């Protein structure tokens, strides 16, 4: 046998020996009917999964995605954005105490929270679109659970070795070597988890300031609490729970099933090409049998511990590592790649019938998602661009509707909120418009002239404004009501903002 064949059969033997005990389900071919118990157990211990390292296109893509996503996550809080004095200089900041969300040049106030809603809608639509085209790429490449589990498994692999070594270590006695490796691994995991928790709280407070506070043990309790919480969750979910989350806890695998159709690209084992499977002796013909040599490499590479040859299943997160594993073997036995690959159901049928594959990425389903995405994006962009930075909001008193004064005139009270979202202060003159004879009686609180108010940058002021209408102008009201506009004009730029309301009086 050649070296390659030696290496190959060694691989297969190792896979079989070890995987028989470590794979998710029993190898049915090695059991007969009498051994099988008719009443299965109610509960089963978790079968530990030891994914083996693979090399290939998709592994490289996953590394790249991991680097990009984790970089974004850990580094974004540190990006600076100057907004002027008195305002935070962090580009992405969710400032809950002051009730502002900052995102580079965008700043949203609580009443504009619908932008965040819009973002979530966009995220959902993007997910639907991507899933209907390429299957569970979210699950396999970008989901935080996948990314952190992948990272933690990689750390484990670096400390405890690849699959076979890890299994041996697990089975073996508690030597100094095992203790040392285990402790190191868990410490490494906890450090990564703490960094993750730390990064999380940096989105909610100024990162450099909070980092200094943490180093000097002066951090607020809430920050510590959340860092502890996320350390715990990252460590538990990424290090301990791993694939159990996808299989048992996450709703997304169940929902995704509804988003595929026969034209979606899914990681599939090409049964028509691979069956009948079985060992292959070098030099013999490939006629009358499938390309699958039952090496089990796809099974040992799987981080979920499943066998993709069983077909599409909920546990498969379509991370495509089995593709890389199989391609590596196919290269070695000099067969074409792609026994496991991204394939559509329709193309599988066409292939079986001998037809050429057709790729229908643009189809009603994807068009609908894309159009919805475009519409929502456009609407949000439009709303964002046409946002007013100076606003007036008027709430008319309802109790009482109006007050009769000694001289017979009618007075209405208003709660007026003036909002200055610009990064510089303004002085506003408050006036009324739209009702002949109406005049402002008082503005509280106001500057000494009683007509203007000062408003700092990025702030809101609440005023009580009384407006009266003289007795002889009562004819301006129709059925006791007339429209009224309260106007705020900046004294420096002359910019005018209005709040529309009404003036009420006795019904004549």
């Amino acid at each position, binding site marked *: 046998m050649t070296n390659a064949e030696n290496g190959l059969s060694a691989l297969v033997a190792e896979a079989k020996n070890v995987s028989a005990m470590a794979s998710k*389900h*029993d190898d*049915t071919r090695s059991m007969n009917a009498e051994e*099988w118990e*008719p*009443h*299965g*157990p*109610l*509960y*089963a*211990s*978790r079968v530990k999964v030891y994914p083996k390292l693979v090399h290939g296109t998709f592994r490289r893509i996953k590394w790249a995605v991991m680097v990009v996503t984790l970089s974004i996550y850990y580094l974004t809080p540190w990006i600076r954005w100057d907004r002027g004095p008195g305002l935070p200089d962090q580009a992405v900041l969710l400032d809950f105490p002051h009730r502002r969300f900052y995102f580079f040049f965008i700043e949203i106030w609580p009443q504009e929270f619908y932008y965040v809603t819009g973002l979530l809608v966009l995220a959902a639509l993007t997910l639907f679109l991507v899933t209907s085209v390429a299957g569970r790429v979210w699950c396999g490449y970008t989901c935080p659970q996948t990314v952190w589990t992948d990272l933690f498994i990689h750390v484990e692999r670096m400390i405890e070795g690849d699959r076979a070594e890890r299994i041996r270590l697990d089975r073996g006695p508690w030597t100094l070597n095992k203790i040392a490796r285990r402790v190191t691994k868990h410490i490494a995991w906890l450090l990564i988890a703490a960094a993750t928790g730390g990064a999380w709280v940096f989105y909610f407070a100024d990162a450099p300031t909070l980092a200094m506070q943490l180093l000097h043990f002066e951090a607020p309790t809430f920050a510590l609490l959340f860092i502890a919480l996320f350390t715990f969750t990252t460590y538990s979910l990424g290090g301990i729970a791993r694939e*159990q989350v996808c299989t*048992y806890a996450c709703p997304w695998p169940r929902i995704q099933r509804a988003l595929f159709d026969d034209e979606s690209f899914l990681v599939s084992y090409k049964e028509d090409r691979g069956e009948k499977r079985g060992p292959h002796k070098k030099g013999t013909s490939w006629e009358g049998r499938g390309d699958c040599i039952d090496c089990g490499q796809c099974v040992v590479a799987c981080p979920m511990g499943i066998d993709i040859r*069983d*077909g599409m299943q909920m546990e498969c997160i379509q991370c495509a590592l089995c593709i890389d594993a199989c391609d590596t073997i196919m290269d070695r036995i000099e067969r074409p790649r792609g026994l496991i690959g991204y394939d559509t159901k329709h193309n599988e049928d066409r292939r079986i019938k001998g037809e050429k594959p057709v790729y229908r990425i643009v189809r009603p389903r994807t068009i609908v998602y894309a159009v919805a995405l475009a519409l929502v994006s456009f609407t949000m962009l439009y709303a964002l661009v046409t946002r007013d930075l100076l606003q007036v909001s008027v709430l008319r*008193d*309802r*109790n*009482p509707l109006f*007050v*009769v*004064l*000694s*001289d*017979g005139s009618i*007075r209405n*009270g208003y709660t007026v909120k003036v909002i200055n979202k610009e990064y510089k202060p303004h002085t506003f003159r408050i006036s009324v418009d739209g009702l002949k004879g109406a005049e402002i*009686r*008082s503005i*509280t*609180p106001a500057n000494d002239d009683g007509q203007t108010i000062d408003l700092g940058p990025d702030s809101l002021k609440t005023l*009580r404004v*009384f407006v009266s209408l003289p*007795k002889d102008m009562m004819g301006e009201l129709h059925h006791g009501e007339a429209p009224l506009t309260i106007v705020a004009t900046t004294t420096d730029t002359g910019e005018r903002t209005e709040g529309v309301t009404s003036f009420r009086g006795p019904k004549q």
Partner: protein
Amino acid sequence: MTDEKAKDEVSGTETTGHEWDGIKELDTPLPKWWVYVFYTCIIWAIAYQFLFPAWPYFWDGAWHHTAGFLGYTQRNEVTQELADVAAGRAEVMQSIAKTPINDIAANSNLMEVALAGGKAAFGDNCAPCHGSGAQGSKGYPNLNDDDWLWGGTLTDIQTTITHGIRAPGDDQTRYNMMPRFLDDQMLKRDQIDDVADYVLSLSGTKADPAAIERGAKVFAANCVSCHGADAKGNQQLGAPNLTDAIWLYGGDRATVITTIEHGRGGVMPNWGARLSPGTIKELALYVHSLGGGK
């Protein structure tokens, strides 16, 4: 049909043995970690019943409940929270109590607290008579307007609230009296009609000029001692301004006649006996801020 536990080829798991319209269900074992979490929840539930209030029981004619070893009650939580709030407010409340009422408006921080406290106290104490929006009703003054029987300055309002009007048990209470001109046989019906016409003419209502002239004479003889020669009222005596557009009991002719014939005597509690001076200060500031304060 329960004995047909077929084994699924793909997963190797057997079915439950039941079949619904051809659909079978795999009997996959549950993960043990899930079961242990479930057991933990059960243990916690049992422990909870010993630690926290849990079971009601009827004993000795009344309902009780098991209190739990930790002695936790929501009533205690609320009491504690109220105490914490009061403690947190103590400093500013002391400030308000110490600062003279006319100086509080200059301090926007104190004013904000005082107005909020006044509004809350108003709703609890004053709204039943003066209305939730302070708009009053027949016989209960509208506190939003700029017409005051006893003066609209901060100290005037404070005094009115503290001592009330015709409040029994308070010897400093405000006391005004509108005589019952008909019932006590001080004036005759036609005289009352005339003086009503005269009074209404002062605020612009037209009437027979002869009646107005007669009424002016009746007014000069009977009414000026309280309402003043110009009928603009007297805030020392609590006599209303009869020339303005605001009428406590109604400004139509019939009501004015009733007022003259049978008199009026409004009553307001002396809140000094019921509320702390600090609260009364807050109320005075609040009422004054409603738009008509002088």
